[in-house]
């Protein structure tokens, strides 16, 4: 926590991995300053290659979305409609009532490390595994690049790296800095975040802290503050959850994410019924010969 200095869970060494403690990220956009230090630290530590230099003309966001070469993505949201009760600026010109609901929100997005992960369920080679700390890890030396995980992630996080980038073809996403965690180091993004908008720590601690923060913000007039952690869906909660102001759609977060495997039963039932039907039809055809 801010003020704890080197004793903060973002800074100090830990044994979470050795002790099989479930860890997570809590990301709080209300203190994010949009510096993108997390995005840069992630690219630096993980040696993520650059995938081109494109100016998007979308506020200060020039990465657009998470992908094979963007594992932390700072979203810049310029909202000019009032979404619930919110702090407004009085420095507006010509809007008549002197109230301007405009606000600029920054949110550092990342792989959610789902409790029930679509990518992991879909992976046929076993390249995607659940780690000791509960995170979801792609082992790139096992991944064969089939791309099943890409369509199975309900958040559009994981992606295959295109040519001509290094390791092209393989699927990539946030590793939760598994290599750092093995040595007792906190993930790079949390370590550098100057405002502790990203907090790394024990999952149970973070959940309690997040609930408290939502409460605090509501008391301070942010009536639309809420937690984004889809526990009630088939994803069954995440290891990287977010505090958001307003609705999840505004942040590109699905309001009701579902793991595609929930459709398995009906898909298999339908396939089975079709097979039986085809068999009967064939038998009938022979019977009337």
């Amino acid at each position, binding site marked *: 926590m801010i003020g704890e200095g080197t004793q903060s869970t973002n800074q100090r060494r830990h044994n979470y991995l050795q002790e099989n403690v479930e860890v997570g990220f809590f990301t709080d956009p209300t203190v994010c300053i949009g510096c993108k230090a997390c995005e840069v630290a992630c690219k630096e530590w993980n040696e*993520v290659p*650059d995938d081109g230099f494109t100016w998007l003309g979308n506020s200060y966001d020039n990465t657009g979305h998470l992908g094979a070469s963007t594992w932390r993505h700072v979203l810049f949201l310029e909202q000019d409609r009032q979404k619930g009760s919110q702090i407004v600026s009085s420095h507006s010109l010509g809007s008549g009532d002197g109230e301007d609901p405009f606000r600029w929100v920054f949110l550092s997005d990342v792989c959610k490390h789902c409790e029930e992960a679509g990518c992991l369920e879909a992976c046929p080679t076993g390249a995607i595994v659940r780690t000791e700390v509960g995170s979801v890890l792609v082992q790139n030396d096992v991944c064969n690049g089939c791309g099943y995980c890409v369509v199975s992630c309900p958040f559009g996080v994981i992606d295959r790296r295109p040519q001509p980038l290094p390791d092209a073809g393989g699927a990539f996403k946030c590793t939760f800095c598994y290599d750092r965690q093995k040595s007792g180091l906190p993930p790079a993004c949390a370590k550098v975040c100057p405002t502790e908008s990203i907090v790394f720590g024990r999952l149970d601690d973070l959940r309690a802290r997040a609930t408290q923060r939502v409460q605090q913000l509501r008391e301070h007039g942010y009536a639309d503050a809420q937690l984004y952690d889809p526990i009630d869906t088939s994803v069954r909660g995440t290891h990287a959850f977010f505090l958001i102001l307003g609705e999840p759609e505004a942040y590109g977060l699905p309001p009701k994410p579902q793991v595609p495997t929930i459709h398995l039963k009906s898909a298999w039932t339908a396939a089975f019924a079709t097979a039986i039907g085809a068999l009967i039809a064939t038998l009938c055809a022979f019977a009337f010969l």
Partner: protein
Amino acid sequence: MPKGLKDGPFPTHYEPLESPVSNELYSHDTNPAEQWFARQENRFAPPGDPRFPYVLTTYRLTEHHTAGGMSRFLSHLAKLQPEMFAEISPELATQHKINNADYICVVTLRGAIEARALVSRRIRPLALNGKTVHQVALPYHYGTAGLVRGGAANDLLTISGEPNVTIMEAKALTCNIVPGRLPRGPAFAEFLNKYAPQTGPTILHPEERSFRKGQSGGGHAHEGKTWM
């Protein structure tokens, strides 16, 4: 006056050396102790010059360092802010029929550069002395080399000397904007001459005329400068 201070003793308000309005507080517009460096390529537009109706300001982005000489060469930083842009309000964009991400030219008496328009509600028109004055905001991190390149905001600035630290006024100037791409080669000189005539008197600002050499009491930046 506190020891060592070249203006004061109390804080007060003067307009920047280039301003779209006159000073409402005094008959004098600009800080009398400010240093002007009068050269043909460093001319200051007079207050309210109709050719340069907008406020120009420059600022930093977290992704780049100073004029970008280091950060423009590092892919992890350059990727995050890859092109020169100019932030303008939706009101100003409508006036000039500019869409977000269109190319525009920013012109001052000293030069002209090209940038992509970033139209945002964050940039608010100012209400100054009863008139609406629009602002143009530029990051100053781009140049001609590196993984990412772009117009150098420094090309637009004046060189002046704040009386105490002799730092130039880089955050408040006046400019004009022209939709479209910046012409290159000989056409550039023609373009610049059209919007910012490069001939004519060196001193255009009335208060620059009254400034005398040595008036501000000297400073480390005096040496080697050309004075009128």
